[in-house]
């Protein structure tokens, strides 16, 4: 019966767990959360056409010592947050079946979206980072590759577009709900009322961030700019157009797919 019960002496004054927890919480917001916002923002420049998108990507490429900056400020903190997050998720004993309160659902979803986001990031890294290393995919080929990739339809289902929509949704939910948790665990919101106000605030923020990310995915998948009309640059075609074909065909046509 008492699967949840434990021994009396299961405790030590060791400060390590506390500091790791705090570091986990902090890395979720800066730099990982901040990067998520920046990333979705940069990607949304694609709504203005390939020229604008390539410009934004080049802007990033021009950051001095980019590999070092990326490793220190994105890969390392993200890996730490993700690995420790999976470990923390395994400690949870969800009980939404009996205690159906909304915050309890949010608690469970925070863990599910964490794991989903983790898996999605792995797929996404394979698509646009690891292949860049392995096969010398160029940054100018990102745009046509994304268009080809996200509009891929199998058995009438735009499965890759859906995968990306789910990935964006789970990352954004995790970040927005994480901000509510962050405010509680650092003692910024010290009453339940303040925490529900934070939930509304970050809920709206998360929704807007999701619309931004979803619009980009939808644009690459279908060529529609749903809510952000930007000039009249041509929509990306599912097949790369001749001008970019030279740089984007053979080497980048992912040999695996």
């Amino acid at each position, binding site marked *: 019966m008492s699967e949840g019960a434990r021994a009396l002496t299961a405790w030590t004054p060791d400060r390590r767990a506390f500091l790791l927890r705090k570091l986990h919480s902090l890395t979720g917001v800066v730099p990982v959360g901040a990067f998520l916002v920046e990333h979705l923002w940069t990607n949304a420049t694609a709504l203005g056409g390939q020229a604008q998108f390539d410009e934004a990507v080049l802007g990033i490429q021009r950051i001095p010592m980019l590999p070092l900056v990326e490793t220190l400020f994105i890969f390392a903190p993200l890996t730490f947050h993700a690995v420790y997050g999976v470990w923390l998720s395994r400690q949870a004993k969800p009980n939404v079946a009996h205690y159906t309160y909304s915050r309890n659902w949010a608690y469970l979803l925070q863990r599910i979206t964490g794991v989903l986001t983790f898996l999605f990031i792995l797929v996404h890294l394979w698509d646009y980072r690891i292949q860049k290393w392995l096969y010398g995919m160029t940054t100018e080929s990102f745009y046509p590759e994304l268009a080809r990739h996200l509009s891929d339809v199998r058995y009438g289902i735009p499965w890759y577009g859906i995968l990306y929509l789910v990935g964006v949704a789970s990352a954004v939910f995790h970040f927005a709900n994480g901000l509510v948790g962050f405010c509680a*665990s650092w003692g910024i919101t010290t009453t339940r009322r303040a925490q529900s106000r934070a939930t509304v605030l970050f809920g709206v923020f998360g929704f807007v961030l999701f619309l931004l990310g979803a619009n980009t995915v939808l644009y690459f998948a279908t060529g529609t700019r749903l809510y952000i009309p930007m000039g009249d640059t041509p929509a990306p075609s599912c097949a790369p157009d001749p001008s970019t074909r030279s740089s984007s065909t053979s080497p980048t046509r992912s040999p695996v797919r």
Partner: protein
Amino acid sequence: MAKRVVRLKVLRQDGPHAPETKRWEEFDVPWEPQMNVISSLMSVQKNPVTADGKTVAPVVWESSCLEEVCGACTMIVNGKVRQSCTALIDQIAPNGEVITLEPMTKFPLVRDLIVDRSTMFESLKRVKAWVNLDGSHELGPGPRQSQENQEEAYPLSRCMTCGCCLEACPQVNATSKFIGPAAISQVRLFNLHPSGKMHAAERLETLMGEGGVADCGKAQNCVEVCPKEIPLVDSIAQVSRQTTKHMLFGWLLK
């Protein structure tokens, strides 16, 4: 007209080290006005015969005050943790529904519906949930407590260590060392007290140890189930703020 009966479905086990005896048993007891779960268990004790006619050892449980102030009778009634003495049969089973009774799952089982909640008492000792006295000699009157301070402290002082909040907390379980919301709230209480304050840093440092306040996952079940309506989420956030400050500036103040 057939006599009205109350059907209880009880999760039983003969002892802490007898998981093989874990079983559900059902009992029909005669309905009485104003009946609650404890009085229906008393009926089972008088006539320990299951619904299918087998005579068994009577079901054991704990209770004391019978008015929701001691916490002894806490168990899982129809899937949710609560005090069984105030679980009125007419409210929880108005149309004669089966009532399920289970022991809490976050504490070591003693037998049937009885669990051992000493972990909670150990936690209170660990966080020094008291005001220290440094001798038996006359110390004169203590510092005055402001009205505001009293109003914040009183609700926290109502905790009866019943364990509902730990039972409902998804972060309290066999794989974690999380101390749980009740003791954290007591740290807030004693850190508010004008004399208790003198040991505030010590209490915070305990809660900055393994299984301390940072293990809360913000699920807020605790505050939903607390029968004393103690603002546990506020307490956890308050103590989080205190530990954050202590972590960032504690060394400066030493």
